[in-house]
């Protein structure tokens, strides 16, 4: 299959995903009406669908480790973040059980999701069995929500204070980057199923290996680098937002020129 053919035909119109998205939208509309924040929700929905329906999903499904990593990052860090942003600011999360409201829980959820699903056995299992894959997708969304809940809970008082949030995000960044560094430079294959395809459902191996020149090593390297660099930048972006929040309440107007 050539690249163009692939881009046009490799869309996986998974009914479960589509129905879940539809239900999600219905619930959102029912609960919060179509207020201004629905933009965030639609964005979250669009990103969610793109990751799970577009050719990225086909690639992640047994072809490319790096595509899987992209999916992983988007589902863990971007979709839950956008979802939380879409909630009205007045919504309280105080109904959370106390254990889920603790920063340490959120941190372990976010970082653990990264390390846990890249354990070689689990990483391979997620590609082999649909059920594990479904479990992985759901768990990423849930754990990501737990992680971001500490930073962008709808109510300001339920968020971490800016300095605490910076520490929280930075340590998470270091913990995830370490794994990224390991994946990038590891002389051994972490997710072996991507190097030895079980089946070439789409007839894409030829194109990927010779057309795109994605060797197995390069694939894992890109996967590791995605986790090391761009993913860290998501955390850093959030850190910058925290700094903006920290200085945000400073007085805006001040005299331009003052002389003594």
């Amino acid at each position: 299959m050539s690249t163009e053919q692939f881009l046009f035909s490799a869309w996986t119109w998974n009914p479960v995903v589509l129905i879940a998205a539809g239900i999600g939208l219905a619930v959102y509309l029912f609960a919060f009406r179509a207020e201004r924040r629905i933009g965030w929700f639609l964005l979250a929905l669009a990103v969610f669908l793109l990751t799970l329906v577009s050719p990225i999903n086909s690639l992640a499904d047994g072809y490319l480790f790096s595509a899987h990593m992209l999916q992983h990052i988007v589902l863990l860090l971007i979709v839950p973040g956008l979802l939380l942003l879409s909630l009205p600011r007045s919504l309280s999360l105080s109904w959370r059980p106390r254990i889920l409201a603790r920063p340490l829980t959120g941190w372990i959820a976010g970082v653990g999701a990264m390390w846990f699903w890249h354990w070689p056995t689990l990483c391979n299992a997620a590609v082999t069995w649909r059920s594990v894959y479904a479990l992985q997708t759901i768990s990423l969304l849930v754990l990501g929500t737990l992680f971001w809940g500490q930073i962008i809970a709808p109510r300001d008082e339920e968020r971490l204070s800016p300095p605490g949030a910076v520490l929280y995000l930075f340590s998470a960044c270091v913990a995830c980057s370490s794994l990224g560094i390991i994946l990038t430079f590891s002389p051994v294959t972490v997710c072996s199923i991507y190097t030895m395809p079980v089946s070439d459902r789409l007839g894409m191996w030829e194109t990927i290996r010779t057309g795109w020149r994605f060797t197995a090593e390069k694939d894992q390297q890109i996967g590791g680098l995605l986790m090391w660099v761009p993913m860290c930048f998501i955390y850093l972006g959030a850190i910058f937002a925290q700094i903006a929040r920290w200085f945000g309440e400073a007085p805006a107007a001040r005299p331009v020129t003052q002389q003594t």
Partner: protein
Amino acid sequence: MNEIATVLDRAGILTPEQREHWKMAWLSTVDHKRIGILYMVTGLVFFVFGGIEALLIRLQLAVPNNTLLHPDTYNMVFTMHGTTMIFLVAMPVLFGLANYIVPLQIGARDMAFPRLNAFSFWLVPFGGILLHFSFLAGGAPAVGWFAYAPLSETPYSSQPGVDYWALSLLVLGIGSVGANINFIATVLCSRAPHMTLRRLPLFSWMIFVNAFLVILALPVLNAGLVMLLIDRLLNTHFFLVPGGSAIMWQHIFWAFGHPEVYIVAIPAFAILSEIIPVFSRKPIFGYEFVAGSTVAIAFLSLGVWAHHMFTTGLGHTVDLFFVASSMLIAIPTGVKVLNWSATMIGGRLRFDTPMLFCVAALVQFLVAGLTGVSHASAALDWQTKNSYYLVAHFHFVFVGLIVFTILGALHYWIPKMSGRMLSERLGKWSFWLMVVGFNMTFIIQHFLGLAGMPRRVYTYADLPGWAWMNMVSTIGAFFMAAASLLFVWNLIVSLLHGRKAGDNPWKAWTLEWATTSPPPHENFHNLPPIRSRRPLWDVANPDRPDPVVGSRGDIDQFRPERNKTSIVAFIISETGFFTVLILAFLYYNATPQPGPNPHELDLFKTGLFSVCLFASSFTIWRAETGLRHNNQRRMIGWLSATIVLGGIFIGGQGLEYWHLFKSGVGVNSNLFATTFFTLTGFHGLHVCVGLIALFVLLGLALAGDSKKRPWPGLDAIGLYWHFVDVVWVVVLSVVYILPRIR
């Protein structure tokens, strides 16, 4: 020495009683102001060394095919020049300046830990002497300031020079971490009552942010140095074939080295942010952006070190990611340059010497930034990385920005330290000599580099254009030397005969100018009200004060207990150290090697001892509870139990080592053994340190010390002890469990 003493006496830094014992007054001081001055004087002394080395380098390169220096001597001089200028000049002087200014700016009486402060300082001369002693011990290091493996390994550098280099950097690194833990604790815990975190003057804010960068980056270097020393002294091969990786050294070195650039640049930014507004007679433009972009720079700098390694063959993919991320650093730096420029626009500029140095630094830093961004492009970097183009670039950063701002800062703050103004006439002379000399030396090196002259060479052939360009560069270097001499002359003359400075000669607005010059021992008799970022402006202009910077309540008032704060900072730092060792273990053991392997370890026994260690986390928590309930006996009981459990763990570790040694497994058997002993050994060392601390606590408690007053030591040591346990959880899983279930 006596002359210096007289000069400092005249300046009124010592009281009459101290003058009698001036040697002791300086040697035994724990006062942040005197320690700050000691730091700066030490930096100045080493600046002379490093400067002479620079002149020797330039003399050797003045003409083609020169034979002034032997190639080996040249390599030594050039290694020592780099190492000295960074670790013994830039860092001590900037830390010294911060040491003097930060407590004054935040209205504190002293640093949070005066004795730690003195200890951190005295490690600087110790490290410096250790480094220079190598000249007597068979030759200085000749491997460049980056000491790339395998050149720095025993087979290629058999002289002990590299050992001295590594040891001295280790000493200096520990000193830097100590000093910066102290900065963090000082800013967080010792601020004057209304000096909220968002009212901090930019200088103090940036030193505070920079301190985090130091405690994160230095341990990475320390871990690398430890590995290098183990390689050299115990015949292992972390960075040597077979099995080892020379690239690993580069990763570790640059994971430290890139942040290091910012460790010395952020204080320079801090100085610019302080001086430019004062001499523009305007508040800084966009305080929030300057402060925020500092944090951005600090974080970004930690993640982009691989751009120093484009030429090592990391591969196209890796290069691509780091090209993109490295270019991003230009954004927050650009924000700062724009803010400083915007501060000057529309201001009533006063070009006194401090401002002249800062404006020159701003312009030169812009050039450095532009050439820096050009290096972020891998393709260009391949061409210019090993040429004088790069030499020119980083000297524009280190001299053009940092040395210039330091000189600006000294002209600005020495009146505060000595009570006497420096001479403006001599200052302007040294400024212009410096600007001309600096630009003569280094602008032309860009072109030399583009013409193909490689760096790190002791001489060069007489190729077209190279000779005169090098000569220009050498002449420029002597202009700079003249400027430095003039500065020292200015310093001495002005300290003796300078005009009295008064409290606030520059009409500046931060708290250090609210006290006398030099400040009294206790810094302030009383503080002006602090409602904004420029308290002295508010005092001078009560009819149009700065807008009040509001307080966000708890966060701004955040004033944690200092022992706990320092231990948390220390834990952050040690996490960096262990992260490197653990990553190294994972990397070197990714594939099984011939010889001893993880399966030979006794998981069962170690598991038992580990349970003891984990249980000790529980017992120390119980001891803390005992203290909180004021139950001395229970506290002492649980504390003793903690010591016993920790002792059992260490004993178990010793037993395991003994069995391994008996079966012929030594630290140099293979890379598994090396990494195993390094990782568990350093963990064991941390347990031992914890045990010593616990023994001290126990002794104090038995002597009844814990009854008398708030006793914060136990909580702090408890935190450290939990950290040691958490590290062991990771080590246990990585070393003992992971290889079995893979």
